[in-house]
């Protein structure tokens, strides 16, 4: 368990850097999480993050990469360009959600 500093306040993250409490998330937290992962957020990143948050609100879990591409309409190639460290985990992490449980 560790703390991530976000503009004066701090939020709790686990060993892998995932937000412990999804309710702590806001856009500033997302920026901080992105920075910690070496990513600078662009419009395209936000499209993915917004989809993940919406999907989580509807389904109770983070969407896997395939869902983001099929339902969210983000091309696979873009996913891998936007999140080079591994879109499976990163999209969820930056959206303040837990790792997706599926394999696609």
């Amino acid at each position, binding site marked *: 368990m560790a703390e991530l500093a976000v503009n004066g306040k701090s939020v709790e993250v686990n060993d892998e850097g995932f937000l412990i409490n999804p309710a702590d998330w806001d856009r500033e937290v997302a920026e901080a999480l992105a920075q910690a992962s070496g990513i600078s957020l662009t419009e395209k990143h936000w499209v993915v993050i917004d989809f993940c948050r919406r999907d989580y609100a509807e389904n109770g879990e983070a969407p896997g990469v*395939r869902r983001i591409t099929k339902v969210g309409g983000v091309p*696979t190639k873009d996913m*891998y360009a936007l999140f080079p460290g591994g879109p499976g985990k990163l999209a969820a992490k930056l959206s303040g959600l837990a790792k997706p449980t599926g394999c696609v």
Partner: protein
Amino acid sequence: MAETAEKLVQTLEPAALVKNEPIKKVSIVFSQGALTSAYAGLILANAARMSGIDACMFFTFFGLDVVNKKKLDNLMVPTVGNPSMGIPTFLGSLPGMSWFATKMMKKQIDKMDFPPVREMLETLDDAGAELYGCRMSADMMGLTKDDFIPQVRDIISAMDFYDKSAGASIIFI
């Protein structure tokens, strides 16, 4: 004396306490053409890519069916000599059994929102996985690069495969 002991502990401690190094690359060898074998490898490759792990896929012998344009849509579930099927061999060898088992399996796979083999291969290529056919097997079966899907980058030898697998964990299916 105390100094040498301390130095010894210092050199040993990091090795003992170091966390396992994350995997950076996997090389997956597909040696079987069964639907179940194909998915095992494809899902492992996809999970690797989703985790930011490089993936190299090598298709050899019957594994070539998985990337063969004419065969990959019709990969089957083995029903004979398959101890996991739970049916006696004589039943498994009846006409239609393999077709039926395959149909059931594909239905289950679709329910889990897993894509068909062809789409999975396209996704993997888009995700940056590298696909290669085995030269020896292709020669044996009289196949050339044209017989394979465009996502197969090249037909290479086993030695080439090892070169491409430098630093990789090799998974054999």
